[in-house]
């Protein structure tokens, strides 16, 4: 029988949070990191960092580069991600994204709500030489992206949280909605037609169309977007792609297991 020992409640939760902060650093960094660099970046002391890194290495989440003794994300992280992929229902969803990418010839994104922002989780890139690139893990603001705007339009809680008491919005490009009032008008239109647009509001030269993926209660939890260089997306194409994206999003909504909301 394994002995049960009392966890330091506070200490434990903090350590878990720190371990994830370490993983997150590796995730965003994309290269090798030494313990010193990790400690410095996260403001932890060296021995704590050493301990956390050792625990992550023991489970295969990190591995050590034999050449420079720094660390990188290991196969444990990889396998977890692959399990999450099917857990999520993404393996069912992927063909629907592929079909949308094939029929539009443009890049397609699947994003999920993560607190105050949307995160790109799956991505199929256009094969055209001029294309918009936005790798999985990219965080996009809700008020300045097509995915974000359907998440606001079709999720009242999120809209309230994001816009309550807010007047001015962060301007990312000259075309970003500058005020909550102007964004609200856009959201009302989005709700009415079932899809949103992004008219160079987050990146100059990029226009997008998005539709919500809703749970059984009709609340948006995720979104898909078709993204194209503005030169290939005149206004008329918004109207053509909108219904197409909305149909694909509905199909994906029905593919997800009941209760799953990403």
């Amino acid at each position, binding site marked *: 029988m394994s002995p049960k020992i009392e966890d330091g409640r506070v200490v434990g939760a903090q350590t878990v949070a720190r371990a994830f902060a370490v993983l997150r650093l590796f995730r965003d960094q*994309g*290269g090798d990191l030494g313990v010193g660099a990790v400690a410095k970046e996260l403001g932890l002391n060296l021995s704590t960092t050493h*301990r956390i890194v050792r625990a992550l290495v023991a*489970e295969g989440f990190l591995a050590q580069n034999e050449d420079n003794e720094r660390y990188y*994300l290991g196969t444990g992280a*990889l396998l977890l*991600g692959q*399990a*999450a992929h099917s857990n999520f229902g993404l393996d069912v969803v992927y063909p629907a994204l592929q079909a949308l990418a094939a029929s539009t010839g443009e890049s397609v994104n699947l994003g999920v709500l993560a607190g105050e922002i949307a995160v790109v989780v799956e991505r199929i890139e256009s094969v055209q030489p001029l294309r918009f690139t936005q790798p999985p893990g990219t965080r996009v603001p809700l008020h300045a992206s097509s995915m974000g705007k359907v998440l606001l339009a079709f999720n009242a809680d999120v809209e309230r949280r994001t816009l309550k008491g807010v007047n001015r919005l962060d301007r990312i490009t000259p075309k970003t909605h500058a005020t909550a009032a102007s964004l609200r008008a856009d959201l009302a239109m989005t709700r009415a037609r079932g899809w949103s647009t992004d008219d160079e509001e987050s990146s100059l030269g990029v226009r997008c169309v998005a539709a919500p993926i809703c749970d059984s209660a009709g609340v948006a939890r995720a979104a898909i977007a078709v993204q194209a260089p503005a030169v290939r997306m005149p206004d008329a194409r918004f109207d053509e792609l909108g219904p197409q994206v909305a149909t694909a999003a509905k199909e994906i909504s029905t593919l997800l297991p009941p209760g799953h909301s*990403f």
Partner: protein
Amino acid sequence: MATGREHALPSPANGQVAGTQTIVRALAVLRELRDADGDVGITEIARALELHTSTVHRIVKALAAAGYVAQNDRTERYRLGREAFLLGRAAERTLGFEAAKPLLERLAEITGESVNLVVRDGDEGLVVLREESQQPLRFTQPVGARVPLYCTSTGKILLAFTEDPSAEVTRLGELKALTATTITSPRELLRELEQVKRQGFSVNKSERVPGVCGVAAAVLDADGLASAAVAVQGPEFRMPDERIAELASLAMATAEDIAAAIPHGYHL
């Protein structure tokens, strides 16, 4: 569920510091969710890991706050969340798997058969990437599947391209016959591994699953040791002897390209 899981969790005696134990437990919870087929409840996790429900509750809460697990609104059970997925994607990129994927796709397309990338995990091979044949009759093996080393084409590569294949074979102990053609004699296996090393590829002729053939090549690190194996797998009748040489050279070319995509000093 699994018995003997308790040794997956280091006992407090060797858990160096109080804090590390919580990390180990949190990662063990993630592993339970990873290996589960569907959503999992707190009680099941607690039972599998021999932990108090309240402890698991606390860990799962912390994991949920970090986005690593998500709760099914209906059943209140848990599954892996978006951060787990994104972490995997990042690992795919840094490990060079993202670059390897199109290479495997191409190999699958040229050969018309299923293609696997397998790494060693202890005394087993672990399927980490997979491209499935488009043919109705095809060999299917999901990512995350574990395969024995002595009776698979990838396993033979992972045994042959090591420092000491003879010691590897000894370590495996008894070689259980899974089919009529499984190599069960350690001496014969070692001879085969020597040949694999000489010719640069391995073959599995229905040695694990009747009717399934595999041809594999080594993804070599800087020391000439296998860090992974690439295999083309299909039904035996589509992989006759006269096709082996062609499949082997295609697998070897792909393995070489993959080796170039994996950052120097990395171990898969």
